[in-house]
């Protein structure tokens, strides 16, 4: 086992990793920028090293300084958390080359999974269902028609250079395809200066379902159930839960088997997440593999009892998985609310000094946060300041617990997303589990009206 782990991150995930290390009896080194000197992750670690100024590119992402910090403190492994250097294949490679263990997938894994086209190819070769779409850009209307027929309507035409809904056209039937193709092409050209468009199957109200996997260095792979992360705003997850209200035992086994297959196809190591899109007819399509521990990993921990960070560390230390697929039991239901330092209506970041702070407690409530009284939320980094996680015997209990825990959470001095979470958890559709990736935008529009 490692003697000393350097945590190349900050905030709640740095504290999360330090806690796991402490419980494993491993010494910890925190790194920090010069605005994070007083941060809880710095105070909680055994040692701490300032690695640069506020700008993350010059501190938390500064590979020479982070590696020097590991060297001068004698750390034998680095946990990257999520974000910053977590999915930087070059960093993982440099760690490997200087003999410091990178706690995560191999640099090859990161590189392969980071290249979405390559990852998609690997999965197609393995026979894993991927998002149906055209093979690259469409040169003309007839290519579009051919692709659309193959995929099946409705389809969506997207600009290759696009984003934010520009250059997109949903097409429900063949008759509308040509006009939509031309319009999308023209809009793409005028907006992005590039008329390249491609085509995908259009899903109405899909769910974002992801499967947590663990793979040890001997290639043994298990999955730990799924997470439903459909509550998103502009691809930013806000609420996650497990099990998904849309996934029954049969589907869980099926999608889990595919996830394990995907991971094996990629020769993937350590913890990872296989993301799927689930349509209304229970068809699921591979989207991507997240080659890191994720923000929402705690909900899986709550229902399995398995500490995913400890498993990451054990796997990286070369230990085989201590359990088999049949040993993993899903008990109860869990939710996570991401509490961001943001105005809850407009989602503008709201840094500042925390003038009052009190965490909720009691049965089935977990708080992962590096906040404390008189903490300053600095504007340089992610606005996630706390994760509020609840567990209950069933979805109703976990939900009721979240409502009362949200009521108990006191954070003053800055604005947070807590009021929005309260509204979501009081929403009748949400309570029934009728959620999709379109839920939040519609919910916000309704509430604004």
């Amino acid at each position, binding site marked *: 086992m490692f003697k000393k782990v350097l945590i190349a991150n900050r905030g709640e995930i740095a504290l999360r990793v330090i806690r796991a290390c402490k419980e494993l009896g491993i010494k910890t080194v925190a790194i920090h920028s*010069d605005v994070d*000197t*007083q941060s809880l992750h710095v105070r909680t670690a055994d040692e*701490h*090293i*300032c*690695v*640069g*100024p506020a700008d993350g590119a010059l*501190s938390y992402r500064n590979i*020479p*300084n*982070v*590696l*020097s*910090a590991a*060297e*001068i*403190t004698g750390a034998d492994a680095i946990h990257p958390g999520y974000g910053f250097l977590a999915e930087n294949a070059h960093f993982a490679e440099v760690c490997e080359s*200087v003999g410091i263990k990178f706690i995560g997938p191999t640099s090859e894994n990161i590189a392969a999974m980071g290249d979405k086209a390559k990852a998609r190819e690997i999965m197609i070769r393995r026979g894993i269902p991927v998002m149906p779409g055209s093979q690259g850009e469409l040169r003309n209307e007839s290519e579009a028609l051919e692709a659309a027929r193959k995929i099946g309507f409705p389809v969506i035409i997207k600009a290759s250079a696009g984003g934010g809904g520009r250059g997109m056209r949903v097409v429900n039937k063949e008759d509308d395809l040509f006009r939509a193709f031309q319009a999308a092409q023209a809009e793409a050209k005028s907006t992005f200066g590039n008329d390249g468009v491609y085509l995908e199957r259009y899903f109405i109200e899909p769910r974002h379902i992801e499967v947590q996997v663990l793979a040890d260095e001997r290639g043994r792979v298990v999955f730990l159930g799924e997470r439903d992360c459909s509550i998103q705003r502009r691809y930013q997850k806000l609420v996650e839960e497990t099990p998904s209200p849309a996934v029954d035992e049969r589907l869980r086994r099926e999608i889990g088997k595919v996830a394990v297959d995907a991971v094996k196809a990629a020769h993937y190591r350590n913890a990872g997440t296989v993301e799927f899109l689930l349509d209304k007819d229970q068809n699921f399509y591979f989207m991507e593999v997240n080659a890191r521990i994720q923000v929402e990993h705690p909900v899986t921990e709550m229902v399995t009892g398995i500490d995913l960070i400890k498993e990451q560390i054990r796997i990286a230390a070369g230990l085989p998985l201590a359990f088999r697929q049949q040993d993993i039991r899903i008990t109860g239901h869990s939710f996570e609310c991401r509490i961001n330092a943001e105005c809850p209506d407009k989602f503008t970041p709201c840094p500042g000094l925390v*003038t009052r702070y009190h965490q909720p407690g009691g049965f089935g409530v977990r708080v992962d946060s590096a906040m404390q*009284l*008189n903490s*300053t939320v600095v504007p340089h980094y992610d606005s996630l300041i706390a994760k509020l996680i609840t567990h209950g015997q069933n979805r109703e209990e976990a939900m009721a617990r979240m409502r009362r825990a949200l009521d108990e959470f006191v954070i003053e001095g800055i604005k947070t997303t807590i009021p929005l979470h309260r509204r979501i958890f009081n929403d009748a559709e949400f309570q029934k589990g009728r959620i999709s990736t379109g839920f939040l935008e519609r919910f916000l529009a309704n509430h604004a009206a």
Partner: protein
Amino acid sequence: MSPSRKRARSKKTRRPTVTLPARAGSNGLSGDLRADIPHLVDLLKRHGLAELEWECEGFRIRLRREGSASPMVVAMDSAPASAEAPLESRTAPAPNDTSGKVTIASPIVGTFYRSPSPDADAYVEEGDLVKKGQVLCIVEAMKLMNEIESEMDGRIVKILAESTKPVEYGQPLFLLDPESAG
């Protein structure tokens, strides 16, 4: 990485930090009001003050003594005495007498060396006059020897880090007096 890149890095990361007296000074208060009251009373008495007012993050305390002839009122800066304490340098606390002097801090994380090799002389000693651009020390990082140069003329008043020991980003290495530039 090539030697030429090494030199470039050394240049690029050379950013000595100037520490002003206001930043180095600490009034010794913890921000815990209860713990600080006796300390404040002590201050009042020791300095024969008539009145003392302290405000800090929602706390404000004013102490006044009758019978003191001195009309002097001490105003304390409210900023430093908070939970957001100044940067803690791990091996070398900032010296008290820094008026007019400049701290040269490490621009990178690594190991501090005062000489180019174990058997060579140190680049500089305390009391030495140095010129802008003169190499003061080496900070080794990732097997690279990064030469740290002085940003100005002056006299090395104090060497604040110990040779062969690790230094973090922003850690003070030298105290330099630009007035003594001669």
